């Protein structure tokens, strides 16, 4: 794995640079104005993503408020990630993929039982990651809402049909989010192996927090 910074971060001060192991949770506080870059190291790795106002975690990412404000169901460069109050939490300022999902939600042991059968119930799932990592911040089940799935492709067709289909990403593609206020980011590096969201092979991703050089 290269430790070089993505070229679009050239000149910025690196605050944090970590690799999230396959199937694992991750979280971080991001200060207003700082940027979080996510690198899809090996390609087509869904990064399930929740976001809270650090000062008041009842103010949290809202997929419907985000969709309603931009009048579009896909996230792409320029998308503002909004809270349940309608306020901006982060903005997607750089995107090398083109489209990300915020409709499909997180996999869970329970939803896996419906989608694939009860034999999958004991497989690890994103909701488990969210619960485990959220507990470190005093967050619980009631704090989980419809999330973002970066690098996951969920087309919605004219008749309303939708599904998680083969991804649009590729090894090394990155995206960058600017924090519009102090935020807490909660991530599940998706462990799903029953659909194409991870190319049937969960892989690590890289998280880089940067700020403008002083």
């Amino acid at each position, binding site marked *: 794995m290269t430790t070089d910074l993505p070229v679009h971060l050239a000149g910025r001060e690196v605050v944090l640079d970590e690799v999230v192991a396959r199937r694992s949770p991750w979280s971080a506080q991001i200060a207003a104005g700082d940027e979080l870059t996510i690198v899809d190291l090996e390609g087509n790795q869904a990064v399930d993503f929740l976001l809270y106002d650090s000062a008041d975690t009842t103010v949290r990412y809202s997929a419907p408020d985000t*969709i309603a404000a931009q009048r*579009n169901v896909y996230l792409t460069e320029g998308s503002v990630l909004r809270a349940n109050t309608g*306020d901006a939490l982060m903005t997607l300022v750089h995107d090398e993929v083109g489209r990300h999902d915020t409709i499909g939600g997180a996999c869970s*042991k329970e939803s896996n039982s*419906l989608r694939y059968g009860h034999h999958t119930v004991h497989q690890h799932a994103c909701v488990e990651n969210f619960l485990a990592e959220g507990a470190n911040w005093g967050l619980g*089940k009631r704090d989980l809402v419809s999330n973002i799935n970066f690098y996951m492709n969920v087309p919605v067709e004219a008749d309303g049909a939708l599904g998680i289909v083969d991804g649009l990403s590729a090894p090394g593609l990155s995206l960058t989010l600017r924090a519009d206020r102090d935020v807490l980011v909660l991530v599940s590096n998706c462990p799903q192996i029953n659909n194409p969201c991870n190319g049937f092979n969960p892989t690590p991703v890289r998280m880089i927090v940067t700020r403008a050089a002083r």
Partner: protein
Amino acid sequence: MTATTASTASPASTATTASTASPEGARAHARAQGGTVVETMPTVPAATAADWPEDIADTLADSDLLIAETVAGGNYTTLAIQRGTVVEFTDLEGDACAHLAIFNAADTSERLNVADTVKIQWQAYLAAGAMLLSDRGRVLATIVADSSASHDTFAGTSTRGVNEARYGDGSPQGGTPSGRDLLILGAAKHGLSPRDLPPTISLFQGVRVADAGGLDFLGSAGAGASVRLRFELPAIVLVANVPSPVDPRDDYISTPLRIRAWRGEAATLGSAEAVATPEATRAFGNTIDYARAKGL
């Protein structure tokens, strides 16, 4: 300008001239207001409501007619109902929009999960036969009848800030309340907090997804459209009747929403909805085993 129904207020002066300077006079004044009928109100006992659906009024006993309420535009209500209850929502004038948050009354940590609802059914547009799924892989409710088919699983409800920008106010005490503000109040009446509010669905003011993901406002199917939900678990239902957040009209247009609820039977493994798809079979299986184990 707003177009909510202003019919929730009682007449300013009821047929009394009693002085309210003493408890006795104030009591007489208060009691003289009883029996006032307005367009948007609960009717108690529910069975005395005039407009039960014919197929229900003709077949059920009065004791099975559980809830009769018409919710004003820009207002809300909450329902606490047992497993098997059927709730009918009717868009009386064509501009109701029922924003719903649904909880398992036996364990309110289990609630509507819009993402799972659309993902598991491989379908974003709600219609008859669709399940409203919880975050625990169970069916909270089933759409058993739907003459509207114009609903929204994408845009959620409105917020105070957006309503302030669009209409000048979004507070519950104002004339153009946001859906979120009303749902916060409804949640509080069941011991739930803003933390507990999940993304909602809305009935009667639909959206459709266009090319490249654009969200088109489809709007109303017209006056009189109705939806029946059969609850597969005991439920707390928060209902806010406010405009869709993507309603493009400049005015806050929100008209009465009629609710009728009656006793029914939850689905069995052999019900049409439960055998419709493999996902539904497993969802109803999870739900029925859970309800039986928990004694619901």
